[in-house]
């Protein structure tokens, strides 16, 4: 069930709208500017991969845990991954303890779509014994401080954590899986990055902060791979978008995804 918390004061609403009409924003950004992004990889030693992302005041932690398990019957030679998001109560006065609500489920499923549809993970390399044993990657996103635009922070966190993931080499002896000491990189071949827009009156703003999310009519998230393919898209919110909004958002996303991708730490780190 939806949460009934998206209430902003009329004064705040008016000021955000009138600023947007002038091409300005509460925090002094331009309409197409991201807040400052920091991405740190390998911050949780006990996780196979992890990343801590801040996007302005928004903070999220993504972690990857690996297990050996069974493949799905229809893809016997492919590994498995799942994405889950936890809106823990420390992150916002309106988050409550309990199982993921529809916002958390939507977030996780949109992040999942970006990774899955871009074929970011080479799932065949996660197969150990076809039909029997494969690697299963659990990508868990913890929202720590919800100051807006969880989608882009979580996409960055998830893909960074995956790039940071180390998995042990395995050997199969007489049908038994033996885990070796040597660690190898997790097989990542694409880096999907998302850009989220809020439509405020008839203006599109990039990377909405929480105040902007409270007053927006609609949200649009566009995820692209490094070849400018659109690999996931999701409209949210109770308002509407015009065709021109969507086309304009794609052009902006094409530029912004490249800029964000540059900020992702690659290669070996302390994870």
């Amino acid at each position, binding site marked *: *069930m*939806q949460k*009934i918390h998206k209430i902003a004061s009329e004064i705040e609403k008016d000021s955000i709208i009138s600023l947007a009409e002038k091409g300005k924003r509460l925090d002094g950004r331009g309409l197409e500017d991201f807040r400052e992004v920091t991405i740190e990889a390998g911050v949780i030693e006990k996780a196979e991969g992890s990343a801590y992302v801040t996007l302005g005041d928004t903070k999220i932690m993504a972690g990857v845990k690996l297990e050996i398990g069974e493949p799905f019957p229809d893809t016997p030679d492919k590994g498995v991954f799942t994405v889950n998001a936890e809106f823990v109560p420390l992150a916002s006065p309106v988050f409550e303890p309990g199982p*993921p609500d*529809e916002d958390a*489920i*939507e977030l*996780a*499923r949109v992040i999942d*779509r970006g990774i*899955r*549809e*871009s*074929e970011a993970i080479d799932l065949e390399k996660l197969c150990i014994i076809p039909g029997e044993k494969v690697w299963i990657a659990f990508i868990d996103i913890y929202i720590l401080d919800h100051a807006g635009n969880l989608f882009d922070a979580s996409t960055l966190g998830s893909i960074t954590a995956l790039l940071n993931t180390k998995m042990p080499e395995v050997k199969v002896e007489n049908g038994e899986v033996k885990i070796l000491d040597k660690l190898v990189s997790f097989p990542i071949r694409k880096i999907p990055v998302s850009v989220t827009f809020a439509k405020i009156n008839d203006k599109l703003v990039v990377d909405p902060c929480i105040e902007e999310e409270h007053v927006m009519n609609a949200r*649009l998230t566009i995820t692209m*791979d490094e070849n*400018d*393919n*659109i*690999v*996931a*898209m*999701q*409209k*949210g*919110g*109770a*308002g*509407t*978008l*015009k*065709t021109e*909004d*969507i*086309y304009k958002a*794609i052009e902006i996303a*094409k530029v912004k995804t490249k800029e964000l991708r540059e900020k992702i730490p690659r290669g070996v780190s302390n994870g």
Partner: protein
Amino acid sequence: MKFIKHEIPQKLITEDGLRTDGRRFHELRPIKLEVGILKRADGSAYIEQGRNKIMVAVYGPRELHPRHLALPDKALLRCFYRMASFSVEDRKSPAPSRREIELSKVIREALEPAIFLERFPKTAIDVFIEVLQADGGTRCASITSAALALADAGIPMRDLVSAVAVGKVDGHIVLDINDLEDKYGEGDMPTAMMPRKKEVTLIQLDGQWSIEEFKQGFELALKGCEQIYQLQREALKKRYIEIREQAAKEMGENAENT
């Protein structure tokens, strides 16, 4: 277990440019729409689109329980998209899945812009969607049908909402994808719009689409919504004519009795 085997075609598009069900790229599946099919609901509608069979009931505006959820300035719209356990090849557990929760949310957000919720503060408008058989594009068929059920309930609306999914199948952009094209095709883009206002109320996408492909697909989806809108109007008109005839008949009977 699958006892009924469905053959997976070698190719999703034949050399003659035909799809698995014999359609051309820009053709919709046969669509049957019925309004006012349920006795107890305030509004209802049924859609068959290909082999999709979906029933929608609307209750409300009505008193909201639990009451603390009530909104002071408008009605609370709630939407429940559920698939029957027998609607798909492998039995679906009746417990709501994460997919159903997400779809309930995006369907609600696709319908919400069309409804004058501010006319009914502190009440609830509930939309219940039961997918009895799923054949690809169920969220869009649900939206198309739910818009009719809302209209049937007499809820004031700015516009109808019409929805269709386009897909990328064997490299072609095609309208209204079926189950096979959804499962084995390269991409899916469910889209909904308010047809008179030309505003988009739902857009989702998976697969890999170049910007050009996206634009081609999106424009095709808008054209498809336009066609579906005409079918929705006809279904509503048909229902109103039925109501008028029924009322005339009842008035006639009353006249005879007095």
